[in-house]
């Protein structure tokens, strides 16, 4: 595979006395799905926000397509091609699918929104992702959680994302919806976009991931490629070792 699109080297982030990230290295290449695993409080969301331009790192470098980048705002990161789909802040339920899809980048015809273009594009992009909308006027609130994630992903893809960050896209979903979202991730990856898939669910990660990086207490514990690591090892790394192994034993390996 080619050079990474985004390469983050030894990132640290402090909030006053609190050290949220303490040396994180991470990269993602075109057409791969790189899973970032970590338990709650491991620093996943700080990491995402650093990558998407919400936070500036205290130290460390972010390289984008080989150049050193210094994102001033989420808008900068977005324009460079880093799109983020947040777990629950992705969509506005009361607004139509079209309005959500184009939010912030509405196509204009003269002074007004070009609704013909907006609606037809939305319909066709959603169809590409495997969702047939009843109508582009349909409120997002009528869609299922998985469908909402898919709208957000389709939106990011349509607007030329090179890297797509998915923040726990499956955590609130049922089994069927989860597999739908995972299928979407697979589809996006195959189109040549680098996917950063954040999760604490090893099973979901294993289903689509090409590489796996574990984050624990603000540090990356190394990266493994598919086939180099077992789900059990990942689970252990995430939880930080021994106690988890014992716990798992008592639960009969179901976690």
């Amino acid at each position, binding site marked *: 595979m080619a050079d990474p699109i985004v390469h983050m080297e030894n990132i640290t982030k402090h909030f006053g006395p609190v050290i949220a990230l303490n040396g994180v290295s991470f990269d993602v290449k075109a057409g791969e799905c790189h899973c970032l695993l970590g338990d709650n409080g491991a620093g996943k969301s700080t990491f995402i926000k650093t990558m998407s331009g919400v936070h500036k790192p205290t130290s460390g470098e972010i390289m984008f397509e080989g150049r050193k980048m210094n994102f001033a705002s*989420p*808008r900068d990161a*977005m324009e460079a091609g880093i799109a*983020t789909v*947040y777990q629950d*802040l*992705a*969509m*506005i*339920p*009361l*607004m139509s699918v079209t*309005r959500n899809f*184009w*939010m*912030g*980048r*509405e196509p*204009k015809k003269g*002074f*007004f*929104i070009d*609704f013909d273009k907006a609606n037809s594009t939305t319909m066709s992009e959603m*169809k590409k*992702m*495997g*969702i*047939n*909308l*009843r*109508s582009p*006027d349909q*409120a997002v*609130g*009528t*869609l*299922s*959680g*998985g*469908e909402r994630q*898919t709208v957000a992903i389709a939106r990011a893809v349509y607007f030329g994302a090179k890297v797509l960050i998915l923040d726990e896209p499956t955590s609130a979903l*049922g089994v*069927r*919806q989860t*597999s*739908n979202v995972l*299928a979407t991730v697979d589809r996006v990856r195959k189109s040549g976009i680098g996917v950063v898939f954040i999760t604490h669910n090893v099973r979901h990660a294993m289903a689509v991931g090409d590489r796996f990086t574990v984050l624990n207490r603000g540090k990356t514990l190394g990266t493994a490629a598919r086939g180099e690591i077992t789900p059990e090892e990942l689970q252990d790394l995430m939880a930080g070792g021994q106690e988890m192994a014992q716990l798992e034993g008592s639960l009969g390996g179901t976690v």
Partner: protein
Amino acid sequence: MSDNGNGDGGALAAGGPDDERIKKTGGLRQWLIRPELGGIVGVIAVFIFFGVLAGDSGMFNAQGIMNWSQISAQFMIIAVGACMLMVAGEFDLSVGSMIGFAGISIAMFGVVWGWPMWVAILITFAICMGVGAINGVIVVRTGLPSFIVTLAFLFILRGFTIFIPQTVENRTIIGGIEEAAEGDWLAAVFNTDLAGWLFRWLADIGVVDTFSRGTRAGEPVISGIPMLIVWAFVLVIIGHVVLTRTRFGNWIFAVGGDAQAARYVGVPVDRVKIIMFMTTAFCATVFACVQVFEFGSAAADRGILKEFEAIIAVVIGGALLTGGYGSVVGAALGALIFGVVQQGLFFADVESSLFRVFLGVILLFAVILNTYIRRIITGER
């Protein structure tokens, strides 16, 4: 989620272009999910109600129609601003005080200090929209609820409105505006009766009554369409187009629907909110201009409680108090309902203190209906 045949993952699995499980949506449903529906139903109901109860009371003669049209137009002007602000997720409780403040400002500059009226008007617009911007900046900077911030301005503005003329002029009612505005081009924009010929013709064919005595004997009782109504229509149309057809309108919905989500996709949330606060201030100032130039005086107690009347009209018109959903046309219909009910009860000879009872019932009824409609739209429970 409601499992209505294509919910959950069904649509994804089916995939193909001709999914027989996707309901064809008829025109009826398209029409049903409009936020204006409650308003339209309400307007029809209210007109039937008063048509039966007060049909022969003069409510539907030319003067009567003009009367409730003017009242409704007043509500509409402030409801447009309040509606767009509410869609953007904020309130402005300082609207009523702003009306009093703007009126006194025009009178102070234009009458007491003798500046040309058009200058007085423009300065007043600048000051009031500036105050609106301050409201907005405080709300977005501090993250305090706009309810509290604008409540503070309700008192601050009212205080200045009484203090300034009291200190300078020893009185709180300033007259002489009509004389000072004589021949002023900008004042005329707020106080001219249009299409007088139409009413003279209507009087000739006997549709409109004429004055039977006095200096205006023989003239129609209505001299034209007041600018108040023109302004109301213009603002409603502009507000509606901006909200539904433009990029900025989409941002207003987004900001009110979920400010964080909007911010993530690059919508300038703070700017949108501040502009919306300035818009309500603009509408309040238009209201004040129309009023002072029609009645020829400004008083420090004008506009009391108008902020609530605006909010009530907006809520009757289908907007959500929590933001992100609403319609300017709906708010205008809400204003029409409000105006027709208020004046209609007079015409129907209902004890005037019961007006509040009716208002409360209508408000409750509207909110229940709107909540019900919204649930249909979004499928939420």
